[in-house]
């Protein structure tokens, strides 16, 4: 997912990034050494002992496993990066820091949601840190920039814990790539038929005008027209729009009975609140991709979001035992509520553990072969990796925002489950 809180102009983005980057590099270097120093110490001792240690390394018996986080820990996506790490480490904690009997070391590298940083970080993690798995990134543009490096180095599997752009599969189609999260088709197209059957046969489309928003809108439109629905108008607003008054005029004058929207982060907060401010919620039904009404935006959207529908692969209020257990453990460990990103981090750890156990080694090709088609028991409900595309084949949930008796005024409640959604394969066949 791209674009939480990012500003619409290059200047602003640059300013924010430079600022956050400068202040945060210090934080990052405060944190990272714990792992990277021990690694360097290990290497140093290896050189000293010489051939023996080198042989030991080859045998891999006491080498341990290394996980590299290529995630944003500063800037606008910091919260997402932190949640993914929390989820991943919750799993590690539950398995005593070991996977398949081997010690797991984690290395954090801050991508700052910057495409260039993403490439450097990936190379560092793969070459210097000898990571066996790369977890990340958050932003799709970073993911697309990383593809080449992952393919060239060919030394780690890539657990994509959030970046949902379908082009990672269409253009990359990497054997090492596994989406432990979602793709932009999954969070939009499957909603079309449900909307047609339950809400309206005509919609207006509203979207944040950047790759992810455009993809979501296009996928929804195609699916909606295929089931016989009509798209009467579409309205694109630049990323980082503070005030949606003008766009809401266009949406209102489209005369549609429903509006399908893609906005995320603070854009979603502004858009939904303005929608209610102008009283449009009385005129048309709001439906959208899950990020429009997610756990990180609902506290700010509050009652303005009541009665709106969205589609996502995970909802923290899911009543299954597996999920309740996950939510409970997460709260115990971090004293906060698990969100979709934490679930994606947790499942990345599950995927890595399953890959190592099944392959019996940390060889990336063997791990990738082991993971294709593998099923994971996730808090979101079991899902498996499509063996052609390595996308997650998973349930998608239609949720309605309802009043809550928990610590927030409103929450999502699942109203319908769309089972095991399998998307297009974008011409990628890894089998």
């Amino acid at each position, binding site marked *: 997912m791209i674009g939480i*809180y*990012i*500003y*619409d*102009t290059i*200047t*602003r983005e640059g*300013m*924010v990034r430079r*600022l*956050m980057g*400068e*202040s945060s590099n210090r934080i990052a270097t405060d944190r990272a050494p714990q792992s990277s120093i021990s690694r360097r110490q290990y290497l140093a001792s290896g050189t000293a002992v010489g051939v023996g240690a080198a042989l030991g390394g080859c045998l891999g018996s006491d080498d341990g496993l290394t996980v590299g986080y290529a995630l944003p820990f500063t800037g*606008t996506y*910091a*919260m997402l990066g932190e949640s993914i790490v929390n989820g991943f480490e919750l799993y590690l904690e539950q398995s005593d820091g070991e996977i398949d009997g081997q010690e797991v070391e984690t290395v954090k590298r801050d991508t700052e949601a910057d495409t260039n940083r993403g490439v450097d970080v990936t190379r560092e993690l793969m070459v210097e840190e000898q990571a066996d798995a790369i977890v990340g990134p958050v932003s799709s543009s970073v993911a697309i920039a990383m593809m080449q490096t992952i393919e060239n180095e060919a030394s780690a599997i890539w657990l994509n814990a959030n970046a949902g752009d379908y082009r990672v599969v269409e253009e990359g189609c990497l054997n090492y790539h596994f989406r432990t999260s979602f793709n932009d088709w999954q969070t939009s197209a499957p909603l079309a038929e449900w909307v047609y059957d339950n809400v309206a046969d005509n919609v207006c489309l509203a979207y944040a*005008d950047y790759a992810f928003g455009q993809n979501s809108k296009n996928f929804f439109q195609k699916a909606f027209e295929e089931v016989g629905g009509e798209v009467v108008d579409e309205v*694109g*607003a*630049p990323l*980082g*729009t*503070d*005030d949606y*008054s*003008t*766009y809401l*005029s*266009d949406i209102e*004058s489209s005369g549609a009975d429903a509006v399908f929207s893609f906005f995320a*982060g*603070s854009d979603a*907060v*502004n858009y939904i*609140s*303005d929608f209610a*401010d*102008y*009283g449009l919620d009385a005129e048309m039904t709001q439906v959208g991709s899950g990020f429009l009404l997610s756990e*990180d*935006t609902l*506290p*700010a*959207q*509050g009652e303005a979001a009541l009665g709106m529908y969205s589609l996502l692969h995970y909802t923290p209020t899911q009543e299954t035992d597996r999920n309740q257990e996950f939510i409970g453990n997460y709260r115990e460990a971090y004293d906060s509520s698990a969100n979709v990103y934490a679930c994606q981090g947790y499942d990345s750890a599950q995927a890595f553990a399953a890959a190592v156990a099944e392959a019996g080694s940390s060889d990336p090709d063997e791990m990738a072969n082991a993971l294709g088609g593998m099923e994971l028991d996730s808090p979101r409900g079991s899902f498996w990796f499509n063996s052609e595309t390595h996308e997650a084949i998973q349930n998608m949930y239609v949720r309605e925002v309802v009043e809550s008796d928990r610590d927030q005024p409103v929450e999502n409640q699942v109203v319908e489950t769309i089972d095991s959604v399998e998307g297009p394969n974008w011409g990628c066949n890894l089998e």
Partner: protein
Amino acid sequence: MVETFLRATLLGVQLGMTLALIAAGLTLIFGMLDVINFAHGALYMLGAYFGAVIAVNLGSFWLALVLAPLLVGLIGAAIEVLSLRPLYGRNPLYHILLTFGFAIMIQGAIVQIWGGQARRIAQPDLLTGTLSIGSLNYPIYRLFVLVVSTVLIAAVWLAIDRSNLGILMRASAHDTEMVDALGINVSKVFTSVFVFGAVLAGLAGVLLGASRSVNPGMGMGIIIEAFVIVVIGGLGSFRGAVYAGLLIGLVTAYGALIAPTLTDLFLFGLMAVVLMIKPNGLFGTTEAA
């Protein structure tokens, strides 16, 4: 179509007046203290966060509207007295670096304390809902912001133009040594101006915090717009800040109507054109620049 246009106009004027509140502080501080205050956006953001915290904990938007700007004023006072004061008369670069540092620190502190999630100040019940003017529906809260900002701007204008304090402020800016020699405590005047600017920014933070999201990036977002306004209006000119604020507000609103993706291009294009024709801004004097 007419409604859309009317709505955009109302929005533009409202946005312009609120931006003018922020830019006014920025331009006054520059005009009087010769300080380019990069922390001004961070003070606006602090206003919004304080407002959000007060509104949640004390349950009153009105208390937030009064208390949050005062708290921001206190922080402004601390910044001016403890850090800026020793640097007056030195290379302006020191002020830029210092206030830029404050902007980063405040932003960092906000992320540490309140996290990166967007939030929003709840609008008071009295001001929720829409008002119908003919066939035009407009949210009452936005009309409220429009009225409050306009009244405040008018009051500040009068104060600077007519009151003794205003005359003193202008005199201090014009010739600090002379005013000092007349037995007036200039450093007190400077502190007042800085605090006054901070309070205005904090007020704008609370007002806008209930109609757009409150997040750690908002300070950096607004400072760019505020600088564009100050540059167009003329550095140090209050009148310039108000006119340029209105201009930018309207350009933003109409821009979204005509070509949303080009809005920023319009803003910076406008600034470029103004600078080409009047290098000191619309109301700038050569002296101020």
